[in-house]
């Protein structure tokens, strides 16, 4: 791809390109510390900023070309680059050792959006928040941008020279240790194997602070062989989750949600629906979807699982009696038995191996294994022993050379290992990372890591399917991958990641190797690489006889995975930091969640409307942190929840000062949850910022907002959701006929929506949504075009959760349109409520008159101070809005236009837009397929069919605004034996 061609494409990129040719620029860039080193005496912030600015300038040039190595496949698109047309490549994103198949949109050589790979078996076209958000990390101006030696600038050549001499003298590897991120990809494994062969005595730790080691060890307990349980939720009528957030954080979200939602799609009265029982301490997204939920402390779950196993093994008709937990167990077992072979019992990664073993045993006893549940070889081996060994060696000062590849142990390691102290005893610490993080500050050599969109690699997904990770852009900061660095350290003959990956996969291929290589790149997956079911039997008797740890009596704290920042690696990613936690709605911080009773007993209260709330001091085994309180109805009393990944000390400008570091409380024995927590109200206050932060804003106040009933009631009263609406009001003026062409509409199924936030991140990327920062979210100025409203339903203790995605409803009688004095928001002939940014003067009258409050105003120039490099990630099809104008969801109007142009210019002849030609960003990525968009003029479109169902209702229809987005009412399917005495929690 020649430079000239690209320049023609993107005129705005030209000046930089030309700038790069000038003598002036050359002179300046040659003098950069990257080349010399004199300028950079220390890694003070000032210098770092200088370097970053330089890096940003250089990176702008880098973006003018596509990577040198051969990206060959167009997964979807045209033969060659057509100006203004994006290209799509399939690749894979490895997070915590599990790959997620992605399709990346690339505009003029710049990746701009991460979407799920539709042909990938575990993605099916959807992507979770991390996979989508990781795109922004590529353009993070705070990334490590050059090699650093002892705090001063160096380069890769210098490092290679050093590595050759240093690693050549290590002999059998005694005193050498590696801590790497997890990667189940074959290339990485092969490289590690080669390195292990070279240094047989080296210590290895594949470290992820959030992992599923307990599940693997649980399978080992139950079967004798290491394995992982894989459930097919689309085959299960009854699901029992034992503290397992399989719809949220405890899985890659996408596939389980896809499967689960299939069983929850109810078109007509009388349709079947699955039933979900959740046993958990804190509230999770899965708990929010529960039909029946039991609040238990995490330490009580093991005992509960044992009870279930016992009851399952009993023969004869089960009796549902007693109270609380006992009754719940009896009812669950009765239901499970009724659905033997058609149910799933799953256990969460926070729970000890025994709980996983019990879950497997229950599945075995019910005959689920082989039907709804399979066992497969683990993607990643448990590292419990490796962690112990490394901890001892570190503490004993036995490690002289420590290589940390792509992970941040100084921040994420269990606190009892005292990594930072141990690392100080290490003579040579080499760190490869995307950020100059906590570990990098301890290291002698800091190496910049390549982003996954910059480098070659491979990964395996949760079912074992392997995919090639292909880059879309040359490394912006000259980074390398862990595999590359490891190969170089081990002195492997081939150290280029492209060659490593290609040779790994083509070596065993039969037939035309080049063709095979091109095919697997194109597909983004390698067929036939999924793991076969493990041939191991669960020994139910053995598991039933195992001792079950007894529950602890005191307070317990649960360490949760943050829905935004994951384990802390995305702490500098504005999209994921300003992503509201789906349940607490907190942005920019984490918090301690607790039930009202617990909070009252501590006399701690939360702050509303951006007022400071109370903090509590948490003490676990000597470690203490202070954190701000959020009251979470429905949480078990005495259970505290806190997300990991916040409170980073060495982090870029975004993550600075965000939240509280819960890792300090987490030891290697209490990775999931810790008992014996002493908690007391602290004297300090802290302002938490929530996007739904009114004191009364968590409840629906008897308004028909999220309309909800039980499956049983629905069968009797199929039109319950429409009943609250009055008759349609007549107008003096005739309606627009929409008698030709298209008329757009959307439905959102509240019954399948889990509230996972994926649609928000998809919208951020697609529509160039600016992030505004904590201060301005506190003022209520977040710019999210789609938000997820979360309401508590029912009484405080047993509150259920109702989630409602809310974007612009594109009203037919739009209240915003009639009040705009300059006609900046007008109706399109296809029914859309268009926003003409150029015409908007910013009176904000439309926002005031919008009953849904989905219009967002650019109070300030949110793009001010955006670096050149950050701008690279913008979608060129969508205007970046200036200050002083209003904006809102457009139903992805750029995609509508693209779809119409494609239909018009179809090589087969001009045609009408067909179903599926146009998908909105939120719809595309929704793992539960809750969002449907299409032409409501076409009676056969999915959206028309859904709008015709009896669950369909319009929010605030009583205002006669006639929204085009309608909702399908929520249903719950509670066990009648558990809810008989209570009316279902509010029909509305």
């Amino acid at each position, binding site marked *: 791809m020649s430079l000239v061609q690209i320049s023609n494409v993107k005129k705005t990129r030209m000046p930089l390109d030309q700038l790069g040719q000038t003598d002036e620029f050359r002179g300046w860039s040659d003098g950069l510390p990257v080349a010399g080193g004199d300028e950079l005496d220390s890694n003070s912030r000032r210098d770092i900023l200088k370097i970053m600015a330089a890096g940003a300038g250089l990176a702008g040039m880098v973006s003018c070309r596509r990577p040198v190595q051969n990206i060959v496949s167009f997964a979807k698109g045209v033969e060659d680059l057509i100006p203004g047309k994006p290209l799509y490549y399939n690749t894979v994103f490895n997070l915590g050792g599990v790959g997620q198949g992605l399709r990346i949109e690339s505009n003029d050589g710049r990746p701009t959006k991460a979407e799920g790979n539709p042909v990938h078996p575990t993605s099916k076209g959807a992507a979770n928040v991390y996979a989508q958000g990781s795109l922004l990390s590529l353009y993070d101006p705070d990334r490590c941008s050059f090699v650093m030696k002892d705090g001063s600038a160096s380069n890769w050549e210098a490092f290679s020279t050093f590595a050759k001499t240093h690693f050549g003298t290590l002999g059998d590897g005694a005193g050498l240790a590696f801590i790497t991120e997890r990667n189940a990809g074959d290339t990485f494994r092969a490289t590690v194997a080669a390195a292990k062969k070279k240094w047989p005595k080296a210590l290895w730790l594949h470290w992820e602070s959030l992992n599923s080691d307990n599940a693997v060890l649980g399978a080992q307990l139950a079967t004798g062989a290491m394995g992982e349980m894989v459930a097919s939720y689309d085959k299960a009528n009854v699901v029992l989750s034992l503290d397992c957030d399989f719809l949220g954080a405890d899985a890659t979200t996408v596939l389980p949600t896809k499967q689960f939602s299939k069983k929850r799609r109810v078109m007509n009265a009388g349709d079947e629906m699955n039933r979900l029982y959740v046993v958990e301490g804190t509230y999770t997204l899965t708990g929010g979807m529960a039909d029946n939920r039991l609040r238990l402390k995490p330490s009580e779950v093991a005992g509960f699982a044992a009870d279930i196993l016992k009851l399952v093994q009993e023969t004869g008709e089960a009796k549902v009696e007693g109270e609380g937990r006992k009754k719940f167990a009896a009812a669950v077992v009765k239901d499970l038995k009724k659905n033997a072979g058609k149910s799933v019992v799953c256990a969460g990664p926070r729970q000890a191996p025994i709980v996983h073993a019990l879950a497997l045993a229950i599945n075995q006893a019910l005959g689920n294994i082989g039907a709804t549940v399979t066992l497969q070889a683990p993607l990643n081996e448990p590292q419990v022993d490796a962690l112990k060994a490394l901890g001892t060696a570190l503490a004993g000062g036995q490690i002289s050379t420590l290589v940390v590849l792509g992970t941040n142990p100084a921040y994420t390691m269990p606190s009892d290992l005292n990594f930072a102290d141990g690392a100080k005893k290490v003579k040579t610490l080499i760190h490869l990372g995307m950020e100059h993080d906590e570990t990098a500050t301890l290291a002698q050599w800091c190496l910049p890591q390549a982003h996954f969109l910059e480098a070659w690699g491979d990964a395996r997904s949760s079912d074992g399917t392997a995919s090639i990770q292909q880059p879309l852009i040359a490394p912006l900061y000259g980074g390398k991958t862990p595999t590359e660095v490891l190969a170089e350290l081990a002195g492997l003959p081939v150290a280029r990641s492209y060659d490593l990956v290609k040779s790994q996969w083509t070596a065993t291929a039969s037939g035309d190797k080049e063709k095979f290589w091109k095919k697997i790149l194109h597909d983004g997956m390698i067929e036939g690489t999924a793991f076969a079911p493990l041939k191991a039997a669960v020994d139910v008797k053995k598991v039933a006889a195992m001792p079950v740890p007894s529950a602890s009596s005191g307070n317990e704290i649960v360490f949760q995975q943050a829905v935004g920042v994951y384990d802390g690696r995305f702490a500098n990613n504005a999209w994921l930091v300003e992503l509201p936690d789906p349940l607490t709605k907190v942005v920019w911080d984490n918090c301690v969640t607790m039930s009202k009773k617990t909070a009252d007993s501590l006399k701690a209260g939360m702050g509303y409307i951006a007022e400071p709330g109370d903090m509590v001091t948490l003490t676990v085994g000597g470690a203490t942190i202070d954190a701000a309180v959020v009251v979470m109805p429905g949480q078990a009393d005495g259970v505290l929840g806190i997300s990991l990944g916040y409170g980073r000390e060495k982090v870029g400008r975004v993550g600075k000062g965000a939240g509280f570091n819960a890792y300090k409380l987490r030891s290697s024995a209490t990775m999931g949850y810790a008992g014996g927590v002493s908690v007391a109200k602290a004297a300090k206050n802290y302002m938490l910022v929530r996007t*739904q932060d009114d004191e009364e*804003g968590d409840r629906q106040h008897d308004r028909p907002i999220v309309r909800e009933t039980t499956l049983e009631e629905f069968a009797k009263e199929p039109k319950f959701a429409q009943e609250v609406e009055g008759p349609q009001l007549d107008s003096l003026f005739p309606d627009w006929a929409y008698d030709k062409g298209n008329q757009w509409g959307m439905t959102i199924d509240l019954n399948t929506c889990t509230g996972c936030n994926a649609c928000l991140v998809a919208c951020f990327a697609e529509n160039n949504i600016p992030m505004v920062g904590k201060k301005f979210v506190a003022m209520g100025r977040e710019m999210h075009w789609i938000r997820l409203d979360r309401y508590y339903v029912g009484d405080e203790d047993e509150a259920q959760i109702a989630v409602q995605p809310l974007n612009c409803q594109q009203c037919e009688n739009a209240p915003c349109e009639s*009040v705009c004095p300059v006609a900046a928001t007008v109706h399109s002939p296809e029914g859309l409520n268009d926003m003409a940014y150029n015409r908007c*003067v910013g009176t904000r*009258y439309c926002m005031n008159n919008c009953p849904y*409050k989905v219009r967002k*105003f650019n109070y300030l120039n949110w793009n001010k101070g955006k670096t050149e490099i950050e701008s690279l990630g913008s979608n060129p099809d969508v205007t970046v809005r200036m200050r*002083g104008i209003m904006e809102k969801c457009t139903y992805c109007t750029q995609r509508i236009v693209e779809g119409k142009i494609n239909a018009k210019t179809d090589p087969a002849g001009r045609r009408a837009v067909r179903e599926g030609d146009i998908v909105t960003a939120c719809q595309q990525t929704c793992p539960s397929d809750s969002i449907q968009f299409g032409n409501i003029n076409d009676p056969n479109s999915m959206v028309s069919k859904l709008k015709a169902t009896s669950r369909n209702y319009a929010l605030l229809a009583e205002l006669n605004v006639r929204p085009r987005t309608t909702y399908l009412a929520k249903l719950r399917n509670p066990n009648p034996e558990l809810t008989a005495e209570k009316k279902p929690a509010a029909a509305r």
Partner: protein
Amino acid sequence: MANQVLSNSDLDAISPRMVLDKGIRRTGYKEVTEDVVSIVEVKTPMAWWIAFGISFLIMSMLFGMLGYQVMTGVGVWGNNSPIGWAWDITNFVFWIGIGHAGTLISAILFLFRQKWRTSINRAAEAMTLFAVACAGIYPVFHVGRVWRAYWLFPIPNTDLNMWQNFRSPLLWDVFAISTYGTVSLLFWYVGLIPDLATVRDRATGFRAKIYGFFALGWRGSAVHWNNYEMAYMLLAGLSTPLVLSVHTIVSFDFAVSVLPGWHTTIFPPYFVAGAVFSGFAMVMTLLVVFRKCFDLEHLITIKHFENMNKIMLTTGTIVGYAYGTEFFIAWYSGNPYERFAFINRATGPYWWAYWTMISCNVISPQFFWFKKLRTNIPFMFVISIFINIGMWFERFVIIVTSLHRDFLPSSWGYFRPTYVDICTFIGTFGLFMTLFLLFVRFIPMIAISEVKGVLAADKHRNLPEEVEAQMADRRDEIMKVRA
């Protein structure tokens, strides 16, 4: 002249002559001219300079704040989502409301032949103009792109290439306010012409030229008077519907929306009554001070104040009734959103604003039922300040408490003003006072010719002997002036 004890008939509102306080100073033609015109002729008093200096500084702060806001964005204010309008529109409606008293006094009371208005109409009209000027700042500067605010005017415009949206109440606002501002200015100016001529006649040099220019060659001939009276009458007729229409249309900004708490049909009369209420309160606040400072207690008398207090009592009671009706309808309509909005006003997070409004607007004017209180100047001054505060809070309550909690609880929010909000608002008082001080310094603050007209009208009445005698004494003088 010996002090006279005022009798009840002296305080008869219909009898214009009696309104003037004969007990203290003479109120002959000469005295009126002398007392009023000398204010603009004497050397500028130090106190004026001090007051002007302070006002000017505060006004400069206003322009500083507006400059900062234009350069940075509306985000320097505390507005947010859902509260798209807050202090900006509150202050706009507040000032527009104040601007109602002037035209009401000049036009409506003129048409109703309420001649006691003559002493206060000039100052009230000036106040109207300056209040409209203050109000006008907000619709312009509250928009996100101030440099495009002219797009709201239906003028040929290559940027828009189309008409404005005539369905939008904001566009009606543009017409209503610009019309009101223009007519008020004309009305005020037409009324000023004979007085400007009076000043011209007494002045020399450059001063005489300036006043002469603005006096438009007034010579006081019968034709002049005839044309003048006709023009004044016509403008009064034109202004009268405007008094009602401006605030009606301002109220449409809210009433036309779908928002509970805004979407009510009671708004037009309720807003007009409130505007008159607040306008009179502001006139009262100003005149209590200025009559004292400029020694005009014989021209602006306790009788004027009492009449104004009666109007405030009336309009205040209407406003209180409107508050009650709103609540009743919120309950009676059975609309749950409406009901919530009103309960939320009284008991929600902004309860303090609501109860400030109720105490200031409904309770405080009720003291004027008592004659003793409505003729007590310090007391009425305090009450007028309360009413000013209360009417500001009324607009705040309507705008902010309706917006902050509307239909979907998830979108509810809270507004807090920033220092820019506060300084901008204080700054508008600086602008107002600066303009008012310039007015009292350069323009006769009492309509001399009209007051004299009242004197002349009384001539044919049964006057006390001494007064008749006085008038006879000074006939020559009077005739000279009239010529």
